[in-house]
């Protein structure tokens, strides 16, 4: 069994409540941290090697060290619980089952950054989780871990939960800030970065739920010990939300040393492909990252085993690799049609584009229309090239990375499954009656126990 740092206690009876969480050793990280110098906490986080769990994988300690500290200006910490990347449902799991872990992480992180007012921005649809978090906040306050003069240290902190209202783009940190200010979720042009000018023009750090929860084991173990778990620059543990055609969809906390093959086939994790089917393809890090056919998923282009960590998943770049992203692991079996799946993602990005930049606003619409045309058997060969051309014109030409996120899935689908697009053009009458399955098998697998 892999070591669990976040979810180990998630299923202890009553862990949602302060008393049980405390009895299980909870809030020790706050007691430890509040005796430290805030700068020393930032140092521990740097030493831990923790990388942002929201998708970009940026070093958390380094990000914290960029926070401006002008005299007399408040600073803010904002927890990103918008979780809207298709395939991703790990933050929900953490907040639902062990909410005090997030609150504890927020108290330590707020103290380290000097935030006296911290907001959790949660996607509007997670309405029932708002109550769970507010209950945890109230309990922590009753017990002296929130409010004025926490544990007699003179540190004041309030945590508030803010509900969004249905907009994927509000997961992008500057759109999130706009939304928190009561505006449309239009991303801001950077610079200035939030660390200098964020919420209400004050220095702000935005971090993912899982990132902030991971600060608790970092405090408890010390940054150096935390960094020993995992491998290379993929330190600590990672939550993976697995879905699609597998036997055991769900949220798993992994040590980043396991192979992709073990993750898919072992009974401890996904338990293999459902209904005795074969693995066809997988999007390993949320809908925005490139899809890989089975052979490139399990082994890199050089024929080496691929592992569930930042470096190995991106080995080969976009030509033959993918990304860890948000940890949303989407598995497709042999019966699934890549064109249709890509169409649903293109529709998603068209729906979620905020519309500020023309390449993204227009390009996402075009991609959806052309994919729809191909999928329904009305496409021409030239449409495949047109699709390729459009995605290239979006990538890198927009204010925020949603444009790239919309372009990459389309590019990867064409790169690895062009024959499938061509089949749709060549077999118009079959398109609507039959999925294009049965391609791109991996070699026979040595299934792990």
């Amino acid at each position, binding site marked *: 069994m892999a070591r669990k740092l976040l979810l180990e206690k998630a299923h202890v009876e009553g862990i949602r409540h302060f008393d049980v969480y405390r009895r299980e050793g909870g809030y020790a990280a706050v007691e430890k941290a509040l005796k430290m110098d805030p700068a020393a906490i930032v140092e521990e986080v740097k030493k831990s090697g923790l990388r942002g769990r929201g998708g970009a994988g940026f070093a958390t300690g380094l990000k914290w060290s960029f926070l401006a500290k002008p005299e007399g200006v*408040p600073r803010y910490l904002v927890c990103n619980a918008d*979780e*809207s*990347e*298709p*395939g*991703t*449902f790990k933050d*929900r799991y953490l907040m639902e089952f062990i909410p005090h872990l997030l609150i504890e992480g927020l108290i330590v992180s707020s103290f380290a950054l000097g935030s006296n*007012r911290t907001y959790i921005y949660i*996607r*509007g*649809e*997670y*309405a*029932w989780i708002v109550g769970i978090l507010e209950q945890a906040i109230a309990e922590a306050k009753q017990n002296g871990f929130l409010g004025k003069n926490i544990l007699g240290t003179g540190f004041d902190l*309030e945590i*508030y939960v*803010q*509900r*969004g*209202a*249905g*907009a*994927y783009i509000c997961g992008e940190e500057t759109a999130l800030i706009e*939304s*928190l*200010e*009561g*505006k*449309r*979720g239009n991303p801001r042009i950077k610079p200035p970065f939030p660390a200098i000018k964020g919420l*209400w023009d004050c220095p702000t750090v935005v971090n993912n739920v899982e990132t902030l929860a991971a600060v608790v084991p970092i405090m408890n173990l010390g940054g150096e010990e935390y960094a020993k778990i995992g491998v290379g620059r993929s330190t600590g543990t990672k939550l993976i*939300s*697995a*879905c*699609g*055609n597998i036997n055991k*969809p*769900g*949220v798993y906390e992994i040590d980043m040393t396991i192979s992709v093959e073990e993750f898919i086939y072992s009974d401890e994790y996904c338990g293999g492909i459902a209904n005795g089917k074969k693995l066809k393809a997988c*999007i390993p890090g949320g*809908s925005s990252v490139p899809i890989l056919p089975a052979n490139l998923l399990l082994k890199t282009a050089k024929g080496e085993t691929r592992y569930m960590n930042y470096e190995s998943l991106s080995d080969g770049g976009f030509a033959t690799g993918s990304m860890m992203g948000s940890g*949303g692991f*989407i598995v*497709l079996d042999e019966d*699934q049609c890549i064109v*249709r*799946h890509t169409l*649903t*993602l293109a*529709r*998603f990005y068209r*729906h*979620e584009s*905020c519309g500020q930049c023309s390449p993204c606003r227009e390009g996402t619409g075009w991609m959806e229309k052309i994919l729809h045309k191909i999928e329904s058997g009305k496409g021409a060969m030239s449409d495949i090239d047109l699709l390729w051309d459009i995605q290239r014109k979006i990538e890198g030409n927009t204010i925020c990375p949603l444009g790239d996120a919309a372009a990459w899935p389309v590019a990867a689908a064409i790169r690895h499954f062009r024959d499938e697009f061509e089949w749709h053009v060549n077999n118009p009458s079959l398109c609507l009656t039959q999925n294009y399955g049965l391609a791109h098998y991996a070699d026979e697998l040595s299934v792990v126990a």
Partner: protein
Amino acid sequence: MVKFSEDKIKEVEAIIARYPQGKQKSALIPLLHLAQEEFGGWLSAETMDYVASLLSIESIEVYEVATFYSMFNLNPVGKHVLEVCQTGPCMLKGSDDIIGYIKSKLGIGVGETTADGMFTLKTVECLGACGYAPMMQMGMHYKEHLTPAKVDEIIANCYNHK
């Protein structure tokens, strides 16, 4: 006339108090949620103007926000809104069939409301429940691992608790 009860006004004040002095506009989205719940499940122009007055902001500031976010309904909806996710991971697990089943069972298309005003059917994009697909949102809650039988049960329950 659109107006919150005294209890709700207290709630409004508590929400505004979450932000620093002068930043009450941040309460806009929480207040729109509250207003939508209180005033029939959708936001009329009158409701939006009322919210603007509570926050001392212009009505246009409310309209531009209400139109941006997909959870706000700008037209009347049925008593129960069935919002079925149709994005990739749900599609892999048969969301198209579930949408088709609900359409034929209720005799309505996507975006339509049943004649008795009980149900509105909507399709939505990923709701963060991909591992429990196919799924839909109903009010504050998720209905997951949907099958036709489960849909029958959910709809029957709505009629039983009318």
